[in-house]
């Protein structure tokens, strides 16, 4: 590496470490969430037929994703 090995290899190495690290942490979080979801759904207390009589105009095809931070934090702490 013409005397530059000490700079070239760390550059590539660090790039790989950061990219793989981000990928692995994403996968780990995804797996943890999938496991929790599976557990909850196995528990059975999941869903009820949608569109109750009062909610006649239930927003069926445009679901809104909403969330609250507290849950997320506790869940991240759990994972």
């Amino acid at each position, binding site marked *: *590496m*013409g*005397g*530059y*090995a000490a*700079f*070239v290899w*760390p*550059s*590539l190495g*660090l*790039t790989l470490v*950061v*990219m793989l690290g*981000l*990928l692995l942490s*994403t*996968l780990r*979080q*995804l797996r943890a*969430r*999938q496991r*929790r*979801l599976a557990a*909850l759904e196995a528990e059975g*207390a*999941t869903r009820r037929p949608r569109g109750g009589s009062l909610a006649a105009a239930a927003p069926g*095809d*445009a*679901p*809104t*994703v*909403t*969330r*609250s*931070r*507290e*849950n*997320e934090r506790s*869940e991240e702490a759990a994972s």
Partner: protein
Amino acid sequence: MHRFANPARFTRIADRVLPFVAVATAAALGVGFYMALFVAPPDYQQGESVRIMYVHVPSAWMAMFIYVAIAVASAVALIWRHPLADLAAKASSPIGAGFAFLTLVTGSLWGRPMWGTWWEWDGRLTSMLILFFLYLGHMALMHAFDDQQRGYRAAAILALVGVINIPIIKFSVDWWATLHQPASVFRLDGPTIHPSMLWPLLITAVGFKLYYVTVVLLRIKSELIAARLRALDLARLKAS
């Protein structure tokens, strides 16, 4: 517009696409890195150290590209209230911050033999440092609210303000750097690019972009499950 808003459909499409993208990412990065390390010729001025360019320059491109992508997603989220756009913005900023960080560190590692210092207040590196701070602000604001919906909105507005400011920052930093810098300093830049260097660079860049697609799809999927978990938690809370 809301055709892909259905989370089940999104997950289905993502699951179908992901294996191909992942394989393509691995292939492009493998070939790109191999060419960068062993095939590309050394630069006549910078010698072997030019190999750092093959990770430094694509990282810089990605850091800029992802911020623009976040701004586009933010605009979509604010105008059409498309829920997936919010998730895409949230999923993207850690990846962008990662690439900005890599640009800075590889720039420093490249600059050490070229400039003789670990850090030079060079216009490009300084702009990248500011971009890195913008990413950190975006991530911090995203997580600063008890109501995640507010985090999405606030971060989206910040991203749009940021994307308007980036050209201004870039211009002002270049203006400042030319005032304060002797012209003799090396610029961390693709030197006059010869095809034998261009190919490895392009292949690595494609690999980086595919990597982004892979990870962002996985992260959006993960966020969707998190949203579902929260809805279930809330339901149990209400039932009890």
